[in-house]
């Protein structure tokens, strides 16, 4: 780093000629340094951006390629045989549309259920003191530590006993097992930032506990609730193994549906799979576009306690 020497000032307050030259030199050096650091910063952005975007580019390039060019070795960064056939084939596949509807239904209900339950649990953990509270909080978190396969076998057996296999309910309840704990902890963090004085004031004004939660606390925690809901939606949308095990073809969601349709014993229809992956990621991208301002606020809301 170049040091910036203070410019000498004459008795009358005017910079001397040599000092002016020195000043110009310093400014030039500062400008050069600034330029260098900008180039370095932009280079870093380009490298990181390329690293992040290359998979997306590859997905798009493969989706637009013919099967023959997909298997070219060594692979070509810019595809030559472009086709839209993989997308048109997708539109004609009724089963995939069914999978997509199932995904939308199940992931949306999972998100709503997770947020509703997590709101009450998070509020309880944040604002009430009772014996076993800490243990319960840690128990909720500990449930995240179980291997999914272990939960899956138990859930399968339970749902089978209740005759609930191959239903939306089984999928929603199973997805909630892994979305809710984190939602609870996220929302607890957010409720912690809401001052207790506000709740006391509401109580003094005659608001019931129910009213306080729904009319005062919930609107304040809305960004966090939306963030938690989005998180639950995406987790539900992406789940593969629970959906594959607990639902049949009629109720199955997109991830197992896509794998079943395009990944076979002998070969994988990569271009079609990539086209389908691209199309099915659209709802998630749209959801993020609309809700991203809540997401950032919601995710960090509990990080600093006032």
């Amino acid at each position, binding site marked *: 780093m170049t040091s910036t020497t203070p410019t000498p000032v004459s008795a009358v307050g005017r910079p001397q000629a040599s000092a002016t030259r020195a000043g110009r030199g310093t400014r030039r050096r500062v400008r050069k340094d600034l330029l260098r650091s900008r180039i370095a910063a932009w280079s870093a952005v380009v490298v990181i951006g390329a690293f992040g975007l290359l998979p997306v580019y590859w997905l798009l390039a493969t989706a637009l390629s013919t*099967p*023959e060019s997909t*298997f070219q*070795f060594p692979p070509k960064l810019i595809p030559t045989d472009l086709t839209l056939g993989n997308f048109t084939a997708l539109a004609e596949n009724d089963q995939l549309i069914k999978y997509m509807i199932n995904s939308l239904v199940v992931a949306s209900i999972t998100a709503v259920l997770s947020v509703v339950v997590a709101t009450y649990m998070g509020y*309880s953990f944040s604002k009430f003191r009772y014996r076993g509270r800490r243990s319960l909080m840690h128990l909720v978190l500990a449930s995240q530590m179980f291997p999914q396969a272990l939960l899956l076998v*138990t859930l399968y057996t*339970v749902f089978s006993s209740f005759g609930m296999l191959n239903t939306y309910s089984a999928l929603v309840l199973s997805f909630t097992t892994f979305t809710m704990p984190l939602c609870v902890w996220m929302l607890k963090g957010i409720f912690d930032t809401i001052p207790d004085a506000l709740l006391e004031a509401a109580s003094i004004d005659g608001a019931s506990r129910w009213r306080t939660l729904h009319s005062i606390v919930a609107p304040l925690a809305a960004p966090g609730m939306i963030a938690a809901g989005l998180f639950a939606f995406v987790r539900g949308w992406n789940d593969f193994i629970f959906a594959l095990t607990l639902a049949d073809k009629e109720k199955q969601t997109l991830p197992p549906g896509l794998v079943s349709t395009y*990944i076979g014993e002998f070969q994988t229809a990569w271009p079609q799979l990539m086209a389908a992956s691209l199309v099915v990621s659209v709802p998630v991208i749209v959801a993020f576009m609309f809700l991203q301002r809540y997401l950032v606020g919601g995710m960090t809301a509990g990080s600093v306690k006032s």
Partner: protein
Amino acid sequence: MTTSGISRRAALRMFGIGALGAAGAGVLGACAPSGSPSNGGDPKSKDFDFTSWSLNEEAAKPSIEKIIAAWEKTEKSTIRAVSYPYNEYLSQLTLKLGGGETTGAVHLDIAWLAAMAQMGKLVDLGPVAGKGGYTDVALKSGLYDGKQYGLPWNTGSIGVIANSQLLEKAGIKKHPTTVEEFEAALRELKGLGGGVVPYAAATKVAQLKDIFPWMQTFGCAMLDGGKVTIGDDASVDAVTWYKKLHDEKLIAADVDRFDARALFGQGKAAFYDDAIIGKGVTSAQSKDKTLADAMQPMERPVLKTGDTPQALLWGGVIAIVKGKGQDAATEFALHTTTDRATTSEYFAARALPPSTTVGLAAPEVAKDTFTTEWTRKITRTATGSPFWQFAQNAQIEEAVAKQVQAVLVGKSKPKDAMKQAGEEAAALIKR
């Protein structure tokens, strides 16, 4: 603040209810039916399920749906088609067969038959199999512990495929028959330059089980009377030889089945290992439309003239689950695997060889030189893996593959690696 909201008692009550619910679910889980010898239901029912991974796959789905539709029409029954992706099939089926959800006919890879049969829910099809006219090798593929648990649907093998165009280019006039000749041929092919990988052998863990037939070629039995023999001199020799091919760049690093097909499809590999279906799969993804004609099945070279060429048996069987629709499902399986017209039509759609003598002799099959040559040269002497009888088969294959890879990348010596592989395999078998 500790005063607002729910009282301590109320909060505890709420969580108590929740905890009871969770505990109840666990108890119910523990009480769920398992280990029952039958999956329940009326064995005489005309309606049953047919579970097959192929029911999802674009190439197979239409032909299987056609077989099902024809059966439903003739027999006035309803078949519920059930499917899971191939890579998840075994775990899904294990769970659902154990949970009593799977009934009827089940399509199985022959490598999975033992694991499924051990669950005690499959029907012994011995009396039925006699009516089928299956070939001996096919019948063996459906056998476990002396009982016929599977009716063979398609019987083939995993062997070596050669590119005759490349061999010709390198001046190789006939397929090498011994390991020595094979090595010499690889060197000739290497001399062609242009990035040719003479033998696109598996070098990635995912497919390194392909080394087992080479171990057998060098004389390793792998399992002898319940004792794992990996680690003996023969297995060490096989891996040392593989490492030599790797170091001399006669085989390439980081190759699995998909890479091998891609290399072969572009005329950059002269030999690779695949199932009989490899011809259709590899030529379909190649730009060279003459490649299919250049593909030839080749007997795996032997250590010394007179030895038996080694190949891994490969194929599918249909097993029957005890319980609902058992009898009708058995008839359906017999029809699907033995009816000449049905097997010929299925062969035409998928190039999977039938499992019966009549099916193989059918003009549609007999005129396909690749298939008949494959059956004569490779399937004839193919054997199943001795590890298939163990439920831990996949872990055993992976344990050995990891040790072989350690040798290839220079992290381990063949002798140490094979000793370690043998010990790991033995430990897995005991579990």
